[in-house]
């Protein structure tokens, strides 16, 4: 039960982080150079958080009228308050049910996910990250006084078609003396390219153990993108466009700035200021352009 509580808390943190960052003025591309060594704080818990991707278009209830008993103004207000409580409960129930339905996609992988170790995954990701491989890591209980701290809180998602996994990684960088708001904070989403294998379960948890391997790659990519963003001065304002990409086998869209495209993938900055690394749509021209270059994600 405690583990479930931690998982819920982590998920909630990520789910709300986009908003939180937007509201607390994220400082991407503005990390001041302090000369302090940057160290990665390893996660305190072993659990790796995996969830099923929810379709947010299906939420909510149909419009309906309501007759309130109103013998006097106080009874009328009490009726509205009661109605509000009932509606809130119903909405929460619907939201939980949607998430529970979406999580069913993970049932075949539950045993593998439970064996995953968040600390080992983070260390592996750091080792395979181009920007992070030189960083040291410290235990969550340690509080170095002279080093800058990189905190990484990943939540993984699996698409309903089991074609892709996604990481939403909340990265915070805190310099010594930072209290409260971190110097850099952003959510980086990385979506793996659809595997297009005949049997999804065999692909993810068969001999190849792709579920762990790709989760580590996504985490490493998110750390790279985040560190790059934190260390790069903001460039000229690029136009926002509706960009199409793949999430699993489905075509998705995001209103975003295109920051970079390489090897069939794009890096986007969303309207919320968060970053995404996504697979490009396959067209004749993109396939020709990427013939000699394939992303490992």
């Amino acid at each position, binding site marked *: 039960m405690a583990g479930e509580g931690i998982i819920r808390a982590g998920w909630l943190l990520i789910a709300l982080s986009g908003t939180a960052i937007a509201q607390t003025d994220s400082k991407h591309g503005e990390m001041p150079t302090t000369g302090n060594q940057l160290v990665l704080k390893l996660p305190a818990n072993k659990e790796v958080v995996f969830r099923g991707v929810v379709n947010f278009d299906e*939420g909510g209830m149909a419009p309906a*009228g309501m007759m309130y008993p109103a013998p006097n103004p106080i009874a009328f207000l009490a009726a509205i308050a009661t109605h509000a409580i009932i509606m809130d409960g119903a909405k929460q129930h619907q939201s939980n049910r949607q998430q529970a339905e979406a999580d069913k996609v993970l049932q075949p992988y539950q045993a593998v996910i439970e064996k995953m170790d968040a600390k080992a995954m983070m260390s592996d990701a750091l080792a395979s990250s181009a920007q992070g491989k030189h960083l040291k890591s410290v235990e969550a209980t340690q509080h170095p006084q002279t080093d800058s701290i990189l905190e990484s809180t990943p939540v993984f998602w699996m698409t309903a078609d089991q074609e892709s996994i996604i990481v939403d990684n909340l990265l915070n960088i805190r310099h010594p003396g930072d209290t409260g708001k971190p110097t850099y904070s952003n959510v980086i989403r990385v979506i793996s390219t659809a595997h297009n294998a005949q049997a999804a379960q065999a692909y993810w948890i068969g001999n190849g153990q792709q579920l762990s391997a790709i989760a580590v790659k996504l985490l490493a990519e998110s750390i790279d993108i985040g560190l790059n963003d934190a260390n790069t001065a903001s460039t000229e304002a690029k*136009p926002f*466009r*509706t*960009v*199409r990409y793949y999430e699993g086998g489905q075509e998705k869209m995001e209103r975003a700035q*295109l920051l970079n*495209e390489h090897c069939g993938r794009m890096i986007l900055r969303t309207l*919320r200021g968060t970053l995404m690394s996504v697979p490009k749509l396959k067209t004749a021209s993109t396939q020709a352009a990427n013939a000699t270059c394939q992303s490992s994600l």
Partner: protein
Amino acid sequence: MRCFNRFFLACLVALISGCASKPQQPISLANDFVGGKTGRIGVASNKIPQASTGFPGAACLLCYAAASLAHTSLTSHTESLPTDEIVLLKKELVEVLKGKNIDVVEVVTPVNIADLPDSGKTGPDLARKDFTGLRAKLGIDKLLIIDVTMHGFVRNYSSYIPAGDPKAVFFGSGYIVNLSNNTYEWYEPIEISKGAPGNWDEPPKFPGLTNAYFQSIEIAKDRLLKPFDNGTSPQSQQTQSLTQNQSAAGGR
């Protein structure tokens, strides 16, 4: 008393028959439309309305006032959203049809469909408004109309209480009217609804909902372009043109 009963019955029949009038069902584009003899086609749109908010279910006056008051910031942001991308859809359709060697002309002035006379005829696939007068006026044989009725955000209510989070919506239709007999040759009703992941209440720019809004427009564009397109439209080549420096159409 008898007279009153007849009057009551007449009112009831009128009311029930009004409710029973069927909405136009979708009509697929004929296979030989592209490459067949279609005559000259005009591509028009109605006057694209400003993006707006709606609160269905907030039925009483006080309920609606309370819902409107609770969303003044969202409404104000919604009204600042540009309609450029919807307006450009007409030009995209013209380009797609030109690419199919169809004789096509863009009708620059918006068509005010409500102002057209009623056709007075009922029947399968017959337009309720009389478009035939536009044949001589515009010098075309068929009219392709993009009819946008609402775009923006909708939040369902149960009287005073929200029944869910706001969603981006795009309501309208696309259709082709044969101006010689006022019948629909293609009819595509559009009802798009997109939710925003996470917390939607992010004033003043509402990035989550704004993203959903642009998604709804893009989906509507797909629905309207797809029947005429086999991979040659600007939509299907969108990822190829990402690097082109095009102006940002709002949203931030």
